């Protein structure tokens, strides 16, 4: 029989709603430990009432996004060693979204803005039409390829200053998705999507801080996509087609 005494370290975790507070737990420090491991340990061994989200735990789904030591991150992909530089952790829910409880946020406003930016493909072909032929090396398809991998984790949204300052700003993820559809030659939304991203709170509200690009776990550049939207909107406005 082995007596194990793990060294512990202090972890502050947000509890409650918007008017909640941080609660401290002492969590065993283990090798190669991720922040998700820490949260899971607290919920399983210290306080079963802790609410949090995760799914794949391997950095594919984006469900485990939280604010760790002030920065939005995927907790399953964040090693404690990399962020607990002073030996402590502070874990809070994602910023800029309503808190449901503890580390769980309401993602509805995030996806409502996605819809408001017309981030949805509008088909034009029918089953009677031939397949669309899109050259993979074409400029438009390459523009889509560079930004299509977004999985809607909201880390960029939580990191964006303009989202914080301007409640109706559509945000980096919604605009990034709209840009992929603007470049999709099969899509039929056309001008209505440009109008959606040119409205108050649209692409022109971006100040190019690039917090989104820096924080995106998939290394996308919503800033680049938004710059593309600004160009497309400006051109349409000057041509009178907006």
């Amino acid at each position: 029989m082995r007596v194990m005494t793990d060294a512990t370290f202090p972890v502050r975790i947000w509890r409650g709603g918007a008017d909640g507070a941080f609660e401290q737990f002492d969590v065993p420090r283990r090798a190669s430990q991720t922040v998700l491991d820490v949260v899971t340990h607290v919920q399983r061994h210290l306080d079963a009432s802790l609410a949090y989200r995760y799914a794949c735990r391997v950095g594919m789904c984006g469900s485990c996004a939280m604010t760790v030591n002030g920065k939005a991150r995927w907790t399953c992909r964040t090693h404690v060693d990399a962020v607990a530089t002073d030996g402590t952790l502070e874990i809070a829910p994602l910023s800029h979204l309503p808190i449901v409880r503890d580390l769980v946020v309401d993602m509805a406003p995030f996806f409502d803005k996605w819809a408001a930016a017309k981030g949805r493909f509008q088909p034009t072909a029918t089953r009677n039409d031939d397949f669309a032929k899109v050259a993979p090396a074409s400029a438009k398809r390459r523009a889509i390829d560079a930004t299509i991998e977004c999985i809607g984790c909201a880390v960029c949204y939580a990191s964006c200053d303009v989202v914080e300052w301007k409640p109706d700003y559509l945000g980096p993820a919604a605009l990034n998705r709209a840009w992929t559809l603007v470049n999709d030659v099969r899509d039929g939304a056309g001008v209505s999507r440009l109008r959606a991203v040119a409205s108050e709170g649209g692409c022109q509200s971006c100040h190019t801080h690039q917090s989104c690009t820096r924080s995106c776990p998939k290394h996308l550049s919503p800033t680049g996509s938004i710059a593309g939207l600004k160009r497309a909107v400006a051109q349409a406005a000057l041509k009178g087609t907006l």
Partner: protein
Amino acid sequence: MRYAAWRFVLQRGSAAVLALCVIVHLATIIYAVRHALSAEAIVARMHATAFWPSFYTLFVVAVAIHAPLGLRTIADEWLALRGRATDTVLALFALVLLGGGLYAVASLAG
């Protein structure tokens, strides 16, 4: 709805004009100081050709577009002031800048 797009185009356009105007303006200031031009000499040069009055009129118009639009964004993001009332105040400010600026140009070159 599309006014946001137009505000963006005007802001970028006026910014490009201002970048040029500011450089020229700084150059003229440095020139005037280096050559110890008196106020009378400067006014005389403003009257000499149509170029300087035209240049400064363009400068004034660009400022009257650019400054209120910039303040609109600052009021929105930092003071949470947005909507019709804010836009009206800023539009009046644009007129003040335009009127005051054109008055200055006319005084020096008219």
